[in-house]
């Protein structure tokens, strides 16, 4: 019996010592690859035109740079990117250069000192910094330092089908009551006013973010400091306006079982007249959509009595690239980022070929871009940057931001706005105390 016990004890000892050694090694595994190779992790997929921009810039950089380094890109599209990045970060084995989110989604990485403040190098190179449009770095700046470089600017507008509007003698509404009138005319003629995918809460949230801004742009600033401000009149009123839209029949029936593409299909088929979405859809709407000839865009209407201006945009930045604080050659990484801001990438590829609005100042050739692109660019010209705001889930991070999106979804489904926002305020209070 004793012998038996000994054997078991021995076996356990062997198992644990080996596993401890193995686990220890896993943690200590250092960054692989040669020292003159910089890894770049990106979430873009093959269908993203931005990938061509990256690929081409890497090719050019690898054959011409004076640092003797090579950049190697690893693409992990979709949700997997997030999991992969977090695992790598937790194991302290991050890539040298990486795609990043902005604002609230970037902050945890900055707080944990995982990112290198690129402004340290940028400030010595004003010619590089001046290439960018004013304000694009606002959402990647923390403590006065810039931690990431956005490639494109985004904003949300209302697209509309000009043919349908003409048929019912409608004009793009400038005020809430005009919008209500447009909705009424459309529903009377059996046309869905807004193509909406209510399954993804962030899409519905864009409506709410605009409405809240039109009622009181200060509300957005207040909640950044005071979680109790989520119960402000502006937000409650926003909730009521969302429910008013539902009651008016502004959204398709069964919107909760529509996904992004299914909702857009309603617009494509001419069943829906309007469609609220970011300008990342300009490329699709002006080249592939069956109604591409009739798509126009207008600004979110003002609300009578509200303090918000029609020129405040729900806008942000995307395709941010950051340099990790572990990066082996920060100068080389910065040089590659600078290369990406060259006109030939920004203007030729991002603007004219992909139909995005670059973060770099460019004037695309009007003959090479679509009519819708110019129309949207024209809208953004009047942008009032002071009261413009960004996507709440980006701004406030995954807990409060997504909490807001879900709050709006529950209001859409009929929950009392006062109750819903009270709950959000509690979530925010708990989160901000940390």
């Amino acid at each position, binding site marked *: 019996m004793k*012998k*038996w016990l*000994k*054997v*078991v004890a*021995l*076996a356990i000892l*062997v*198992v644990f010592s*080996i*596993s401890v050694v*193995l*686990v220890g090694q896993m943690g200590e595994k250092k960054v692989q690859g040669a020292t003159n190779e910089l890894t770049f992790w990106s979430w873009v997929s093959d269908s993203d035109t931005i990938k061509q921009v990256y690929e081409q810039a890497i090719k050019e950089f690898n054959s011409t740079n004076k640092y003797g380094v090579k950049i190697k890109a690893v693409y992990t599209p979709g949700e997997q990117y*997030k*999991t992969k990045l*977090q*695992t790598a*970060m*937790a194991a302290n084995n991050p890539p040298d250069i990486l795609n990043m989110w902005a604002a609230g989604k970037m902050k*945890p*990485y900055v*707080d*944990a000192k*995982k990112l290198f403040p690129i402004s340290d190098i940028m400030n010595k190179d004003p010619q590089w910094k001046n290439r960018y449009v004013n304000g694009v770095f606002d959402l990647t700046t923390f403590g006065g330092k810039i931690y990431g470089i956005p490639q494109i600017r985004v904003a949300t507008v209302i697209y509309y089908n000009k043919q349908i509007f003409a048929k019912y003698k409608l004009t793009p509404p400038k005020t809430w009551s005009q919008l209500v009138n447009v909705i009424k005319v459309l529903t009377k003629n059996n046309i869905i006013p807004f193509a909406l995918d*209510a*399954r*993804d*809460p962030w899409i519905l949230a864009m409506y709410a973010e605009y409405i809240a801004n039109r009622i009181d742009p200060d509300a957005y600033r207040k909640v950044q400091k005071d979680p109790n401000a989520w119960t402000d009149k502006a937000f409650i009123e926003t909730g009521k306006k969302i429910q008013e839209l539902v009651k008016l029949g502004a959204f*398709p*029936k*069964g919107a*909760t*079982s*529509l*996904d992004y593409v*299914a909702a857009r299909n*309603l617009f494509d088929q001419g069943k829906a007249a309007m469609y609220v979405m970011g300008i990342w859809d300009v490329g699709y709407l002006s080249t592939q959509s069956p109604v591409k000839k009739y798509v126009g865009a207008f600004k979110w209407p003002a609300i009578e009595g509200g303090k918000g201006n029609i020129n405040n945009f729900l806008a942000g930045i995307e395709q941010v690239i950051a340099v990790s604080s572990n990066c082996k050659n920060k100068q080389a990484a910065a040089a590659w980022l600078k290369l990406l801001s060259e006109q030939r990438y920004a203007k030729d590829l991002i603007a004219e070929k992909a139909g995005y609005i670059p973060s770099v100042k460019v004037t695309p050739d009007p003959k090479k871009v679509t009519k819708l692109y110019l129309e949207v660019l024209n809208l953004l010209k009047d942008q009032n940057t002071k009261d413009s705001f960004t996507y709440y889930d980006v701004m406030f991070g*995954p*807990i409060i931001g*997504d909490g807001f999106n*879900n709050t709006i*979804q*529950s209001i859409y*489904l009929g*929950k009392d706005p006062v109750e819903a926002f009270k709950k959000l305020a509690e979530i925010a209070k708990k989160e901000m105390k940390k």
Partner: protein
Amino acid sequence: MEKAFGNKLAIAIFIAPALILFTLVIPLPILHSFYMSLFKWDMLSTMTYVGFENYKELFSDGIFLSSIWHTIEITVLSLIFQVTLGLFLALCIVNITKGRKYFQNAFFIPNILSSAVIGILWFFVYNYDFGLINSILKSIGLDSLQQEWLSQKYVILALSITTCWQWVGYHMILYIAAISGISQDIIEAAIVDGAQGLKMVTKIIIPQIRPVLRVSIVLIITGSLKYFDMAWIMTEGGPDFASETIATYIYRTAFNKLQYGLGSAASTFLFVVSILVTVLINRFAAKREEVY
């Protein structure tokens, strides 16, 4: 040879590689997940020890509590749908002679499709505008019965039906095998004694296939407890968390909200519940079997 097997050290040496691998792959991650549940951690900043704080937070979170309820609902509905329908199909199929293979395969096919494919397929079936169900209702003049099938009211039912469609063929095959294995003598004796139809099924067939039924019930329950794929693909736990299950809750907190501690606490809870339920079913069912 006999000597070698009598030697405990030799046994230990032979078992060690498998034991090490097993420990590394199964118990260690489970223990690690429990360990993580005692911390607050977003995978970036340093871990802070909070004791059982995460568990307290978990059970005061209304969404988590409702996710437990949804999981129970799905489990019960899956049991009802899959066991009864599977048994019914099995009984029908063993009694037909022509085209048996065809029906067997037809019902089994959904099982070889990936959950992602099925999720997307049924997402369209449930679509309000052009979905199969509403289209059929419309074409036979039952417009008033058209529903938003993935709305808060019906979403759990809709998901359970999809899962039933996916798995019923699998359970049916299990039952067919078991029924075919019943000794012909027993059946004939029962016929002589006057057992027919429903009586035959309830008094003879079901008791005879009880071990297989037990396996299938355990499979359905443990499968439902970790119900994730359909809910995530079709509704992402929505609308407004109406189809949030324990597994989607774990995914959301750990990977979307970066609350790894809370997610680990929820998965530890799920682990304990799964073990408990499996043990209970096996105990309960084993005792009942002794009677026969």
